[in-house]
């Protein structure tokens, strides 16, 4: 199986088809991340696609000393922020109803689990945008503090603080 590094090297050498592995690997996580920022799944997919294209066209500027994913997420984040400012959306006033539609009523246990899931999602959506962002990157995209600090361009200490505070807020929201 082709590794990410080998695929990137092949793309740099002109084999564009090798980029398919990169797109397959990151599309879901990136779309979830962007959908939370933009509160619009269709728009999130468009921005994700643009981010993949930008990363592809600038692949020769990518520094292999850093993770490709953090570089890609940073490109996507900048595109999303540009889109938000272009459309005059206030990131703090985004709708709180992102992604709560997957509740199944086939079994009681499943309903309870889905309700709990929806509650957590609602609690996350009520967070300040920067807190929400670190939660999504840490819990839903499995990035480390260091990787998150590279993506959002903040010190690791700030990332740790924001994660701690946001978790506290989610806990209060669920118990309140």
């Amino acid at each position, binding site marked *: 199986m082709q590794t990410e590094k080998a695929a990137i090297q092949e793309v740099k050498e002109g084999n564009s088809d090798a980029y398919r592995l990169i797109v397959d690997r990151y599309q879901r996580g990136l779309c979830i991340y962007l959908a939370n920022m933009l509160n619009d799944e269709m728009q999130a997919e468009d921005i994700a696609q643009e981010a993949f294209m930008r990363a592809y066209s600038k692949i020769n500027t990518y520094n292999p000393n850093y993770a490709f994913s953090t570089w890609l997420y940073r490109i996507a984040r900048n595109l999303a922020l540009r889109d938000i400012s272009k459309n005059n959306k206030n990131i703090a006033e985004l709708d709180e109803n992102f992604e709560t539609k997957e509740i199944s009523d086939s079994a009681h246990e499943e309903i309870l689990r889905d309700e709990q*899931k929806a509650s957590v999602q609602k609690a996350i959506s009520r967070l300040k945008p920067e807190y929400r962002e670190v939660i999504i990157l840490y819990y839903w995209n499995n990035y480390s503090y260091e990787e998150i600090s590279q993506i959002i361009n903040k010190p690791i200490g700030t990332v740790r603080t924001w994660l701690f505070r946001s978790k506290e807020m989610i806990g209060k929201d669920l118990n309140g």
Partner: protein
Amino acid sequence: MDKLDKQIADASPEYQPNADFTQNTMQKIHDSQTYRKRTWFKPFAFSAAAALPLLAVVFIFAGINHNQTQKVSTTAKPVSTTSQQSTSKNVNSANAQTANEFDVAISQLDSEVSNYAISYSETSLDNINQ
């Protein structure tokens, strides 16, 4: 990882991007590559198109200058200073020679005229009447 951590991690949405997402993205990348190749060629095509009229003007001017040079060479050839001096000397001597010949011709003409005057006087009405 405590209970809340697990709850947050499990709350990840069951979201899947469009099934054609990868295919569409790869297609766009291929399209953008084709477009870039074309745009890479455009400046060269444009400069070639811009150069053609410029070359035409240059050739026209070159042709005019060539004709003018040829015309000048038939009327006046460049000569050295010494040859110019010798030419002027030749011209001066030729002029002097011409002047002498002219003087001779004039004096000859004078004598002929005087002869004619005599003959005229001889053939005047007075003489005829006489």
